[in-house]
């Protein structure tokens, strides 16, 4: 094919009471142009389609001819054997084919979607509970058969979940401490209480923000990674392979991840709180002229040790939730790569949501038992 090719065209010839459409040029996808539309606009009764003058025909041209012949009852003439064969093939392929899913009315569809979403939410909750149970059983099995404990896998997860996260969590906590102190100082200065900035920074970081922000960061870094790793392993049938060899995926994959998250979260949370306090202290020093030594002394006076305990009690629970929703969502991947993405998103959203809900419960609970 080159620039010399003539585009497809046809002309109408009436002779002796019969109407013939005479086609010329190249009846192929690239050169068919507006022929399909013009054919639809032909109103006369056509008896014959004369194709002896065409240069080339492909399946799209053949389809257009076949469709017209089928709808108008016209006879096709003048094709060489190869082209006739092509037309026959296309004709044979003319069968009713479903193109798109059936449509339902918008109202029914919305109702259906609401129902489906509700069922999915309930099922996820039930599934997560079931998964929690399965994880506990796996832990029990590992405790009963300590040789099945995978120390290497756990240590490797320690590194991925904990050590590699030190940089980003440190930076994040430092900035949060700085911002809390700066904003607190501005507000408290209106009442002349800027020294209370120290109380604000110390208490909020140890009690709430240190662990909470760490949990969000770990959910984003590790929860998503768990879901994507396990989801991909499901797709490539690695998990099925494990089962057939007699390795329990719960013990080999879930236990090390949950354990790593449960152990690493308190350490990271404590580290985050310390760095946030350092950030706050730096700002107090620069902006409020409170020397570090005084800052530390005040922190020791105003932050009760129970604040630290609260943070350290919450952290492993958050870690378990993050790891379990990551692993659970990963295990739910069934069929294709798109699901790995959507399940990873669900894992992070679910983990952060559950962490915040539980944090609210913890806040009420600890206040109730008098740790305020």
């Amino acid at each position: 094919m080159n620039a010399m090719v003539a585009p497809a065209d046809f002309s109408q010839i009436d002779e002796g009471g019969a109407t013939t459409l005479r086609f010329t040029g190249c009846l192929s996808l690239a050169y068919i142009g507006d022929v399909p539309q013009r054919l639809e606009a032909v109103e006369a009764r056509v008896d014959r389609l004369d194709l002896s003058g065409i240069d080339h025909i492909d399946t799209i041209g053949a389809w257009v001819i076949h469709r017209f012949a089928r709808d108008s009852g016209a006879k096709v003439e003048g094709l060489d054997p190869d082209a006739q064969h092509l037309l026959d093939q296309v004709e044979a392929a003319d069968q009713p084919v479903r193109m798109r899913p059936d449509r339902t009315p918008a109202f029914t569809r919305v109702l259906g979607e609401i129902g489906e979403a509700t069922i999915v939410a309930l099922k996820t909750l039930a599934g997560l509970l079931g998964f929690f149970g399965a994880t506990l059983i796996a832990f029990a099995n590992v405790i009963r058969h300590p040789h099945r404990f995978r120390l290497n896998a756990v240590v490797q997860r320690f590194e991925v979940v904990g050590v590699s996260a030190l940089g980003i969590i440190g930076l994040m906590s430092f900035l949060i401490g700085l911002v809390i102190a700066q904003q607190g100082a501005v507000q408290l200065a209106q009442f002349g209480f800027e020294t209370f900035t120290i109380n604000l920074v110390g208490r909020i970081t140890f009690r709430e923000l240190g662990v909470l922000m760490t949990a969000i960061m770990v959910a984003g870094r590790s929860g998503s990674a768990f879901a994507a790793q396990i989801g991909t392993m499901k797709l490539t049938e690695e998990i099925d392979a494990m089962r057939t060899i007699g390795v329990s995926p719960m013990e080999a994959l879930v236990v090390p991840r949950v354990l790593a998250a449960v152990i690493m979260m308190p350490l990271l949370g404590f580290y985050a709180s310390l760095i946030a306090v350092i950030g706050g202290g730096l700002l107090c020093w620069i902006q409020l002229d409170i020397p570090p030594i005084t800052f530390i002394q005040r922190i020791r006076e105003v932050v009760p040790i129970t604040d630290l305990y609260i943070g350290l009690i919450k952290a492993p629970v958050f870690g378990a939730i993050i790891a379990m929703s990551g692993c659970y969502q990963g295990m739910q991947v069934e069929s294709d790569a798109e699901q790995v993405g959507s399940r990873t998103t669900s894992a992070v959203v679910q983990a952060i949501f559950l962490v915040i809900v539980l944090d609210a419960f913890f806040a009420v609970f600890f206040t109730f038992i008098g740790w305020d």
Partner: protein
Amino acid sequence: MKRGEPIIRVRGLKNSFGEQVVHEDLDLDVMKGEVIGVVGGSGTGKSVLMRSIIGLQTPDAGEITVFGEDTVDKEETETIDIRKRWGILFQGGALFSTLTVAENVQVPLREFYPGLNQALLDEIAAYKVVMTGLPPDAGPKYPAELSGGMKKRAGLARALALDPELLFLDEPTAGLDPIGAAAFDELTLSLQKTLGLTVFLITHDLDSLYAICDRVAVLADRKVIAVGTIDELLALDHPWIQEYFNGPRGRAATASVTREQAKG
């Protein structure tokens, strides 16, 4: 372009990944209208050769022309005219997972010919779906709902969407059952006859080679060591070729061809 002229011409191709040289001084001609089978042991760079020809892999050296045009080091926009004229079936089908089968087939049509109206697009997709032997209810299905064989057929329907002159098939029968593989061979042959295709077929399947290939190119020692009909190749005394065609599997394939011919 007349029959007998090379539609793909590869000269002095060199490909390497780090230290590992895959191709060196590789030459290959593919003639218009033929079905050429490319065989070679694992790791001899059959897929790399295909990727070089279709421009997914930039070779270290050498020249490649397709339809008489140079494809090496070209931007995607520069080779649009060539891209319209070939279709490629990747090993796993490589269907777009967020689109239905019908939409997958329509993607190249929409991309290259935005002027086509939806009704015609649907009709084209419909007869392509039927032509490649998919069941009529496959149109609205997503790739995840298809079996391996159906994915390949859907991939073939997409590769044929633009009525290409040149078709690349990367191990089309791998992973299919023998009946499905034979049906796929027949389908390839009948489409090739109907549409006058040139087919570049990478395969490990000896039955496919016997059934549909006009010529076979053997890749070994980083180059194409021989090209010819199977009989011509059998006359050579290269150890790998002899091992390949005269090994237990090769003999079985030859025997079945002989049986077929005896039956008439």
